[in-house]
C-alpha cells in the first residue's frame, strides 16, 4: 500500500475490526486539494478524536464519509461493506449519525421536530404530535437538558441549538456518531453532560468521532486520534501515549511558542487611563437583562464570565444597539446617547462581533475580501467606496495577521473552514479600528495556534487604547486577557472584580453562587 498506510498506525486489539475504514481518500475543490490520500479508521466502542488546525480538512473528511461530498479517489468501508453514500440520508440509513460543524437545523420548526424530523412517531400515516413531543422530552431529559420541545428552535441561543443538534444525533440507534466541534459554544457543565452521553455510547459499542480544538477535552474523553495537517494524514495515535506538546507539534508541524507570552504578561497593571469610553447606567431590557451598570475605560479589556443564558450576550447586544433597552441608558465618552440601531453604534465607533456567525455574520456568496470590508464600507457610507489599493492592502494585512487560509482574498467565504470564517469576521471589525470592540465568543472553533494569535492581538490593541468587552465561555481565556472581570448570573451582573490573583475556580464559585466573603470585590 501507499506510505500513508504504513506510517503512524496504531495497533488494533485482535478482537476488534473497524466499523468505518476510509482509505486514501482524496478530494479537490478546484485547485484546492482539501484531502490528499487520507485514511482513517473508527473502532466500535471507542471515542476517536480527529485533530488538526483550522482548514486541515477535518470537516471535509466527515462530509466525505457521510455523503455530502463525493470523493475523487479512495475507498470507504462501513461495516465490512464498501459504500459511497450519495446523500447524508443514505449515510444515516447505514447507521452513521452526524452533527455537522455549524448548527444545521431549521429555525422555523420546533425543537421536537428538529430532533425527530424524518423519523417521527406516526399514527394512521400522520405524525403523532403528542408522542413526538414526549419522545423528544424524554431524550432531552436523558441528556439532562431542560428545553421545551414545543418551542421554536430559532428562539433559542446558538448553544441550545447546538445541544438540540446533539440530541438529534444521539436519539437514534447508530453504529457511528460523528460530532464536529460539538462543544464550541458549550459551558463546562454542558460539556460534561455531553461527555457522559459519549461515554454511554462507547459502552454500547458505538464508534464516536469527535472534533474539538480544546486539547483538554480531547485528553479527557478520547481513546485514539487521527491527526491531519494541510489535507494530509500525519499519524494515527493513542491519546494516552501522546503528550499535548507532541500533539501540537504534530498538528502544526512546528513548535508553538506564542502561547506563553501572554501568560508571562499576565498580571500586567490595569491601564492607567481613567477616561470612560462606554458607560451603561442601569441598562436593561425586560426579560433579557436586569438593570446593569458597567463602565469601560480606555485601553481596558473587561471580561464577561457567566454561564450560557446568564445574560452575557444580551448585555453585548444592548450595548451595541442590536436590541433596544427599555430602561437605563448609555454614555459614550460621558455624553448620553441613545443607540437605536447598530448603525448608531458603529457611528460612535463601537463594534460588535456576534456569537452567531452563521445567522448574523458570514455572507457565504461574497469573497473573503468583501466580507472583511463590509463593516468598514458601511461605516463610510456606500457612496464613498474604499480605494482599491487601500482595500487590497488592508485585506492582505489582516489575512496575514490572522493567518487566514486560503490566503486568496477572492476565495468565496462559504468555502472556508469554520475557524477561518471566524477569523474573517474578527478582521471585519478590527479593520474599522473601533474605540470599543465587543467580542462575543470570538475564538469559537479556532485552533490553539490561531487562538493565541487572536488573544495577543486583542491585548496589543488594548495597549494601544482600544477598549474591549470580551465574552467567552472559556474562563481561562477570560482571565488571561481581562483587566477586570464581570460575572453574570440569571440575567444580571452579580459581581465585578479586578483580575488580580483570580483563578478559574474562584470564578466558578461566584457563578455557582457560593459567594465567599473575601476581598475579591474589586473597585467598581
Amino acid at each position, binding site marked *: 500500500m501507499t506510505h500513508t498506510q504504513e506510517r503512524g498506525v496504531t495497533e488494533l486489539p485482535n478482537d476488534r475490526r473497524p466499523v468505518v475504514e476510509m482509505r486514501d481518500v482524496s478530494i479537490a475543490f478546484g485547485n484546492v486539494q482539501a484531502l490528499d490520500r487520507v485514511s482513517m479508521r473508527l473502532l466500535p466502542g471507542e471515542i476517536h478524536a480527529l485533530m488538526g488546525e483550522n482548514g486541515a480538512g477535518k470537516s471535509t473528511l466527515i462530509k466525505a464519509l457521510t455523503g455530502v461530498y463525493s470523493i475523487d479517489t479512495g475507498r470507504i468501508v462501513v461495516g465490512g461493506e464498501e459504500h459511497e453514500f450519495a446523500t447524508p440520508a443514505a449515510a444515516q440509513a447505514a447507521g452513521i449519525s452526524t452533527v455537522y460543524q455549524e448548527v444545521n437545523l431549521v429555525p422555523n420548526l420546533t425543537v421536537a421536530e428538529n430532533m425527530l*424530523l424524518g423519523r417521527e412517531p406516526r399514527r394512521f400515516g400522520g405524525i403523532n404530535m403528542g408522542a413526538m413531543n414526549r419522545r423528544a422530552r424524554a431524550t432531552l431529559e436523558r441528556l439532562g437538558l431542560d428545553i421545551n420541545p414545543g418551542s421554536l428552535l430559532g428562539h433559542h441561543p446558538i448553544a441550545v441549538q447546538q445541544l438540540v443538534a446533539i440530541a438529534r444525533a444521539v436519539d437514534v440507534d447508530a453504529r457511528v456518531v460523528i460530532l464536529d466541534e460539538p462543544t464550541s459554544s458549550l459551558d463546562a457543565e454542558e460539556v460534561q453532560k455531553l461527555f457522559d452521553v459519549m461515554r454511554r455510547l462507547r459502552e454500547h459499542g458505538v464508534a464516536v468521532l469527535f472534533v474539538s480544538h480544546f486539547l483538554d477535552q480531547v485528553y479527557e474523553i478520547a481513546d485514539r486520534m487521527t491527526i491531519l495537517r494541510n489535507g494530509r494524514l500525519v499519524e494515527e495515535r493513542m491519546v494516552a501515549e501522546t503528550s499535548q506538546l507532541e500533539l501540537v507539534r504534530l498538528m502544526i508541524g512546528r513548535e508553538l511558542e506564542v502561547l506563553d507570552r501572554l501568560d508571562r504578561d499576565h498580571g500586567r497593571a490595569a491601564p492607567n487611563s481613567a477616561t470612560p469610553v462606554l458607560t451603561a447606567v442601569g441598562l436593561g431590557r425586560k426579560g433579557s437583562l436586569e438593570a446593569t451598570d458597567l463602565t469601560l475605560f480606555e485601553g481596558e479589556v473587561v471580561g464577561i464570565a457567566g454561564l450560557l443564558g446568564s445574560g452575557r450576550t444580551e448585555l453585548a447586544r444592548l450595548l451595541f444597539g442590536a436590541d433596544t433597552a427599555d430602561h437605563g441608558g448609555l454614555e459614550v465618552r460621558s455624553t448620553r446617547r441613545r443607540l437605536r440601531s447598530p448603525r448608531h453604534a458603529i457611528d460612535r465607533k463601537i463594534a460588535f462581533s456576534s456569537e452567531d456567525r452563521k445567522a448574523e455574520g458570514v455572507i457565504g456568496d461574497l469573497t473573503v475580501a468583501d466580507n472583511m470590508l463590509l463593516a468598514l464600507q458601511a461605516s463610510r457610507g456606500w457612496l464613498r467606496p474604499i480605494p482599491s489599493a487601500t482595500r487590497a492592502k488592508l485585506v492582505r494585512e489582516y489575512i496575514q495577521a490572522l493567518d487566514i487560509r486560503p490566503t486568496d482574498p477572492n476565495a468565496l467565504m462559504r468555502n472556508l473552514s469554520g475557524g477561518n470564517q471566524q477569523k474573517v469576521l474578527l478582521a471585519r471589525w478590527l479593520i474599522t479600528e473601533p474605540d470599543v470592540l465587543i467580542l462575543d465568543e470570538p475564538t469559537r472553533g479556532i485552533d490553539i495556534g490561531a487562538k493565541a494569535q487572536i488573544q495577543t492581538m486583542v491585548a496589543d490593541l488594548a495597549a494601544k487604547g482600544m477598549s474591549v468587552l470580551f465574552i467567552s465561555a472559556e474562563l481561562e481565556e477570560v482571565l488571561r486577557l481581562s483587566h477586570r472581570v464581570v460575572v453574570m448570573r440569571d440575567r444580571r451582573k452579580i459581581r465585578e472584580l479586578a483580575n488580580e490573583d483570580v483563578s478559574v475556580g474562584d470564578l466558578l464559585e461566584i457563578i455557582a453562587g457560593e459567594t465567599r466573603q473575601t476581598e475579591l470585590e474589586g473597585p467598581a
Partner: protein
Amino acid sequence: MSATTVPNPTTWDRVRTYSPASRYLPVVATFALFIGMFGFGGISYQGFFDWQVFLSLLLDNSFLIVLAVGMTFVILSGGIDLSVGSVVALSTMIAAKTMEMGWSPYLSMATVLLVGTLLGTLMGVLVHYLDIEPFIATLAGLFLARGLTYLISKNSIPITDETFVELAFASITLPGGYYTTWTVVIALATVVVAAYVLARTRFGRTVYAVGGNEASAMLMGLRVAVVKVGVYAISGFCAALGGLLFALYTLSGYSLHAVGMELDAIAAVVIGGTLLTGGRGFVVGSLLGVLVLGTIQTFISFDGTLNSWWTRIAIGVLLLVFVVVQRLMTRRQS
C-alpha cells in the same frame, strides 16, 4: 447547580419560547380583517350581509382557492410557481377538446389531472436537479402550457358533454334555503387535505424544513429531492384541478382563460400571511387570502358605479392597504 442549559426556565422563558399565537398571528390578522371587510360591506351595501353572498364568494373563487393551495406548498418550500394560470387554461382546453372528441368525461378529467401533475413534476425536476431558478423554470412552464393551449385550438371550445354539464349545474341545498355547488365542496376538501398534509405528515413538515433552510434539511438527512419536486407536482395537480373547476364554471375551453391568474394565487397566499421566503405560513391563510380578494371584487360589483378599469386599481389599492394593515398588526408582536 441548576443555572445552566436553559438558565432557569422561568415562566417568562416559557412564554417567550412557546408562543403558538405568534406563529398564527398573520392568519388571525387576515381573518380579523376579512371579517371587518365583510362587516363594512354589510353596512355600506344593501343585501351584502347574506350567507348567500358568502357562498357565492366561495363559488366564484373555488378554482382560485385550489390554485392558492398548490401555490402555498411551493412558496412554503421557498419557491414560486408562475405557470398555474396557463395550466388552468391548458386544462380547460384539454377537457373541452377531448370531450368534443367524444371521450368519456371521466377519462378526460383524469387526463387533465395527469398532464398538470406531469408538467409540475417536470418543473420540479428542472428546479431541483438542474438547479434552475424557480422563477425561470416556471416561467418556461407558463409559456409552454399557454403555447400548448393555442396548439390545440385558437378558438374557444364549448363543453356540451351531458354528464359534465350536469355536474356543473348540480347544486347542493343547505339548510335555510341556501345552495352551493360541488366545486365549492371540492375546493374546501382540497384545503382540508392540504392542511392535514402540511401539518401532520413527514412530507409536509419537510416542506417547512426545506423552506426554513434547505442546506440544513439536506444535512439532516431529509428527503429534500422528493419534497422539492413534490411541491411543484402538487402545484401542477392543483392547477389542473383548478382548471377543471374553471371549466365547470365557464363550460368552455379557451386559450385566453385565466391570464394572470397565477398572480392572484400568489397574492392570495401572501395576503394569507405566508412568507415569500418560505418556511412560514398556513393553507388556511391562503383560503382567507382568496376570500379577501373575492370580497374586494364583490365590493366593486355591488358598488356598480366603478368602471371596469377602476376595478384593477381598486384591487391594487385595497390590497396595499390590507397588506400594510396586516404588517402593522403583526409587527407589534415580534
